[in-house]
C-alpha cells in the first residue's frame, strides 16, 4: 500500500527520478518485477535488499546499462527507456566494484573520466586536484590505480563518479569490503555531497548505514519492493515493541525454536553471539534465562535493547540482516582485490 502511495506522489515537480512498473527478466528469472518509486531532489534514497534482490539490475536500468522489459523511467523529465543517453550527463555512477583503469594514475583516471563528460583540459585538471585533496588522495595522485588499497580505490571511484558535478549519484554498495576508517570517511563524504545538493540513490546491505544516511528507504526482496517509507515511519513500526538480547557463549542452534514453543507471545531469532527475543509486551527475563540454562546454554548477559531499523527489515522481509551482510562481505572479499 505504501508503494502505491509513493506512486501517486511521483508526479510532483520536485521528483528527479520517477520509476513505474519497471520489470526485467533474464531468461526465466525475473530479476525486477513491477517496481515503482520516485526520488525527490536533494534526498538520499536507500535501496536495501539481500544479494540477488535486484538492486544492481535496477541501477543498471536507471543508468542505461540495461534495457527494461517493461515500465517507465523518467530522469529530470527525460524518458530514459526510449532515450537512455539523454540523462547520462546528469548522473554519476559508483559501481559495486571499482572499475577505473589500473594502468593509469589516480589523477589521470579522474581527468579521463572528466573528459568523457566533455570537460576541457584546465577545468578537468583543476577538478581532479580538488577531488584528490577532498578525498585525502593527494599524496597518491600520481600512483597507479592498480596499486591502491581497497579503501583508496573506493574513494577514487566515488571521486570519478562526481567529477562532472552530477545532479544524481548512484552508489552501489559503496562501503562493502573496506576498512572501518575508510567506510566512515566515505559515509561522511556521502553526507557532505548530499548537503551540497546532490541527490543520492544508495544501495547497501548495511542497514545501520542506510539508517544513518538515508531519508527514505525501499526494501527490495526477490525483485519486488516490499516497502518504501521514511526512516521515521518505518521506525514507528517498532513503537511498543520490547526487545531483549541474550548473550550466549555456546551454540544457539535450536534455542529459538524451544523459546517460541514455550512462550507463544514471543518472537525469537538468532543473532551473532546469542538470541534476540521480541514481544509487544514487556519481556520477563527470569523464566527465559531458566529455560535457556535448562537447555544447556550459558547465558552471560541479558540486555534490553532499542529496536532498530534492522528489526523492521527482518519483520517486513523475513530475512536475517546479519547473514545478508556476512554473505555480501564474503563475496566482496573473494571478488575484489
Amino acid at each position, binding site marked *: 500500500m505504501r508503494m502505491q502511495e509513493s506512486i501517486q506522489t511521483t508526479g510532483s515537480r520536485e521528483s528527479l527520478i520517477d520509476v513505474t512498473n519497471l520489470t526485467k527478466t533474464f531468461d526465466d528469472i525475473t530479476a525486477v518485477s513491477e517496481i515503482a518509486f520516485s526520488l525527490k531532489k536533494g534526498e538520499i534514497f536507500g535501496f536495501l535488499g539481500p544479494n540477488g534482490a535486484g538492486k544492481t539490475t535496477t541501477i543498471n536500468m536507471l543508468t542505461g*546499462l540495461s534495457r527494461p522489459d517493461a515500465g517507465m523511467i523518467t530522469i529530470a523529465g527525460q524518458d530514459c527507456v526510449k532515450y*537512455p543517453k539523454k540523462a*547520462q550527463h546528469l548522473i554519476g555512477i559508483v559501481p559495486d566494484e571499482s*572499475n577505473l583503469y589500473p594502468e593509469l594514475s589516480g589523477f589521470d583516471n579522474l581527468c579521463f573520466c572528466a573528459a568523457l563528460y566533455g*570537460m576541457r583540459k584546465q577545468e578537468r585538471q583543476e577538478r581532479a586536484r580538488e577531488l584528490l585533496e577532498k578525498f585525502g588522495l593527494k599524496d597518491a595522485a600520481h600512483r597507479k590505480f592498480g596499486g591502491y588499497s581497497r579503501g583508496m580505490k573506493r574513494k577514487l571511484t566515488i571521486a570519478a563518479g562526481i567529477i562532472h558535478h552530477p545532479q544524481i549519484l548512484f552508489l552501489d554498495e559503496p562501503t562493502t569490503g573496506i576498512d572501518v576508517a575508510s567506510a566512515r570517511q566515505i559515509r561522511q563524504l556521502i553526507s557532505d555531497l548530499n548537503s551540497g545538493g546532490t541527490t543520492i540513490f544508495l544501495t547497501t546491505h548495511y542497514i545501520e548505514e542506510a539508517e544513518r544516511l538515508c531519508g527514505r528507504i525501499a526494501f527490495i526482496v526477490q525483485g519486488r519492493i516490499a516497502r518504501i517509507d521514511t526512516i521515521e515511519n518505518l521506525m514507528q513500526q517498532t513503537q511498543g515493541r520490547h526487545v531483549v538480547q541474550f548473550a550466549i557463549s555456546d551454540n544457539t542452534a535450536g534455542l529459538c525454536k524451544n523459546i517460541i514453543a514455550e512462550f507463544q507471545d514471543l518472537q525469537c531469532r538468532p543473532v551473532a553471539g546469542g538470541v534476540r527475543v521480541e514481544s509487544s509486551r514487556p519481556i520477563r527475563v527470569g523464566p527465559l534465562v531458566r529455560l535457556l540454562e535448562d537447555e544447556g546454554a550459558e547465558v552471560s548477559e541479558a540486555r534490553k535493547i532499542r529496536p532498530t531499523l534492522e528489526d523492521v527489515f527482518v519483520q517486513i522481509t523475513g530475512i536475517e540482516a546479519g547473514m545478508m551482510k556476512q554473505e555480501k562481505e564474503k563475496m566482496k572479499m573473494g571478488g575484489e582485490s
Partner: protein
Amino acid sequence: MKKWIAFWNILAKDMRSYYLKPPNISWGLLFPLVWIAMFFIRSGLGFESITGLLPGVMALSVLFGTTSVLSVTVTFEKKGRSFERLLLAPISLELLMLAKTTGAILFGTINAFVPILIALFLTDLSAVNWSIMVPAVVLIAVSSTFLGLFIAVSVKEVFEAQTFSNFFRFPMIFLCGLFFPIASLPLVLRPLSYILPLTYGVDILRGAITGKNSMYLGLDFFVIIFFCLVLFFVTLKNINRKWIT
C-alpha cells in the same frame, strides 16, 4: 564540441595505454621485418623481387597489427568493467566505438608503412601509385579493425579473443590470394576468397605497387568499403544486444 573532447581522450588514452607501449611498437617493427626476410629468402631472387612481396607483407602487417591489439583490449576492458564507464558516458555508441577503433586503425596503417620504409632503401618504388596505395592501406586497416571489434564483442575472455582472431586470420592469409593466386585454389574454396575483405585490399595494393591487379579497382574499393560498413553496423547491433542487456 563536448563529444569530440570525449572522442579525442578515449583515442589518446588507448594510444598511450595500449598501442604506443614498447612491446607493441617492437611487434609492429619486427613483424613486417621477419615477413619480408622470410619471403625474400624463399623467393631466391634479387632486391627487385621486394616490390612483388610488398602487397602481401603490408596486408599482413595491417591485419595482425589491428586485430591483435583491439580484440584483446576491448575484451580486457569489458572483463574489468572499465568499458561500462565508456558506455555510461553521454556520447553515442557509434562515436564511442569509432574512438575505440581509431587507435587500431592508425596503428595498423603505421604498421603497413614499415615495410615500405624498408623497401625504399632496397629497391626503386617510383612506379608505385601512392594515391591508390594509401587509401587501400587505410581501408584494409579499417576492415581489419572492425573485424577485430566484431571478434571482441563475440567473446567473453581475453584468450578467446586471441583464439577467435586466429580462427579468422590464418584462413584469410591463405585464401586472400597472398600466397596462391585465387585462380589456382580448389574450386570449392574460391567462393570463400571472395567473401574476405582482405582479398580486395590485397588486390588494390598489388595494383598500386606492381600494376598487376586481377579485379577492377573500382569494384575492389566498393566491396571493401561495403565490408567495413557491414562489419561496423553488425558489431554495433551486437554491442546493443549483448552488452546493453
